[in-house]
């Protein structure tokens, strides 16, 4: 097993009672644990809550220390961000770039991962995974000039290609460990029944790999949505993605904190909602290889 889901084996609880009763933890430990867990949750959630609260304040209230928690909420910042600063356009750009770079990466990455897993192509796998190590900046200068020559800078094509650079290694990495843990027997059975190798891959292995594909696809979408550096250099006025749009917010003389926080909420909330509903897949993708040894 290389892809470890967070769910722990259901058998654990009864076994504890039946075989070797765990020594009762002292009451003090239980209290300590509750406090520690509460602090952990606060540490990770409080800043996000703070960001959300600030996005509902006027700039006057943000500068007023007495109104830290008690203030009159307003949606003006969101109105400013969404209607006056064209954030719907940026949301649209981010969404399409993330979706298409994910789909294309799946299209070429999944068969590659399959071949690399089944034929133990370790060296080829290493080449693809190298992309995870290479600093993105070292590719940006050549990319910029190659794509400027092809008049592609500022278009969607170049953004999608550059985001595939992030998505492809991730997908190959996750899918190799997924295919490694899928049994061969079903494919062999399908071949006995008359399917070709490719047929067995398309009709048997691929449908069985939907959880793996979901994991790889969701993570690659999130990483593309969050990507900043490539879009910073390669996007044009019409293809700006959300992270770049937020960054441009502060290049003016004074910072409009309320709107900036509203913009930050607009970029993070969609991805957090996706994360809430696909938690299981995200965790299994992020921890792929954690227990490989």
């Amino acid at each position, binding site marked *: 097993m290389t892809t470890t889901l*967070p769910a*722990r084996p259901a058998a654990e609880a009864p076994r504890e009672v039946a075989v070797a009763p765990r020594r009762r933890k002292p009451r003090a430990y239980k209290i300590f644990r509750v406090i*520690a*867990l509460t602090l*952990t*949750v606060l540490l*990770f959630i409080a*800043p*996000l809550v703070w*960001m959300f609260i600030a996005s509902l304040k006027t700039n006057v209230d943000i*500068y007023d*220390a007495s109104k*830290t928690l008690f203030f009159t909420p307003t949606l003006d910042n969101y109105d400013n961000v969404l209607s006056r600063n064209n954030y719907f356009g940026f949301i649209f750009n981010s969404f399409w770039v993330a979706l298409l770079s994910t789909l294309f990466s799946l299209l070429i*990455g999944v*068969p*590659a991962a*399959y071949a*690399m897993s089944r*034929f133990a192509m370790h060296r080829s796998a290493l*080449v*693809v995974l190298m*992309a*995870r*190590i290479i*600093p*993105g*900046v*070292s*590719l*940006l*200068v*050549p990319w910029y000039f190659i794509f400027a020559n092809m008049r592609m800078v500022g278009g969607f094509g170049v953004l999608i*290609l550059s985001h*595939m650079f992030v998505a*492809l290694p991730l997908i*190959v990495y996750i899918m190799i460990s997924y295919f490694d843990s899928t049994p061969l027997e079903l494919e062999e059975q399908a071949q006995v029944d008359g399917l*070709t*190798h*490719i047929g067995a*891959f398309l009709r048997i292995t691929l449908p069985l790999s939907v959880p793996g594909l979901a994991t790889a696809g969701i993570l690659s979408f*999130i990483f593309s949505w969050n990507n*900043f*550096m490539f879009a910073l250099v390669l996007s044009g006025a019409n293809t700006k993605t959300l*992270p770049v749009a937020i*960054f441009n*917010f*502060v290049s003016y003389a004074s910072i409009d904190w309320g709107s900036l926080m509203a913009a*930050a*909420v607009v*970029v993070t909330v969609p991805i*957090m909602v996706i*994360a809430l509903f696909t*938690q299981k897949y995200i*965790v299994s993708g*992020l*921890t792929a*290889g*954690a*227990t*490989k040894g």
Partner: protein
Amino acid sequence: MTTMVTTKPSMWTNFSTWANRYRKWLFAAPAMIFVGLLIAVPLGWTLYLSVTDSEGSVRAASNLVGLSNYFEVLTDTDRFWPAVMRTFVFTGGALAVELILGMCIALLLWRPFRGEKWVRVAILLPLVATPVAVGMMWRLIFDPNIGFANQVLSWVGIPAQPWLSGQYTALPTLMFVDIWQWTPMVVLMLLAGLTSLSDEPDEAARIDGANSWQRFWFVTLPLMRATVIVTIVLRGIDALKTFDILYATKGKGGGSFHEVETLNIYAFGLSFDYNDYGIASTVLILFFLLIIAIMWVLTYRRKANRS
């Protein structure tokens, strides 16, 4: 007529046989070609630029200057070596805290408890949040005048700190931001390792009378060695290449004193603010070699330990 009927399927069969025979390369080819065109070629170009005096525009005439760029960069104690230092301080410091804190939280979450699901959701949120937005969020919280951080300090009577705008406090503050965002990743990796452990060694140690600390230090931790190393490698690569939160909070050049200028920020500035492609490429090649060297040491030690 009959020939037509028989050739058509046979062409398809021929293709199918051919495709199945070479499926290994057929499947791998698109991804390998993509990697070749978009990664290998540009990387080769960067390698070439690093031995030229290319400046201003890549298309402008440039001369081969041999290794003089490397000499210039490696003797540059003004920008390059401080950037190397900051890269190491940032990565090493953040990674160490993330590992220790991550292990503590993973151990807290290890055994089931009520409300576990909510805690897991809570630690997942920083992880998926857009780094640029996270940078902006902390920029407000750490603002010297209106930030919540200084407000909290004033409640307990500690004088206000400059945080991100201070020459010596900016890098530690950003390390804190990195820790906030990526400790959850470490927790998830370590937790996956912990849940895959068998209970038996732990039980055996308990029966032999080992206390909790001894069981963790002498039983659990050695069994977790592989997971910890994978975590260090994956998190370490990303931490070395941190760009978003540094650039989003301090902008070009890592602030007015270059106080958060790591190798990545330095190379980005050389490329796109100064258009000094020769030197930028040299810095990038050295940076790349550095990452590979660190990864090699970590994985080499891992193999040596296993055999």
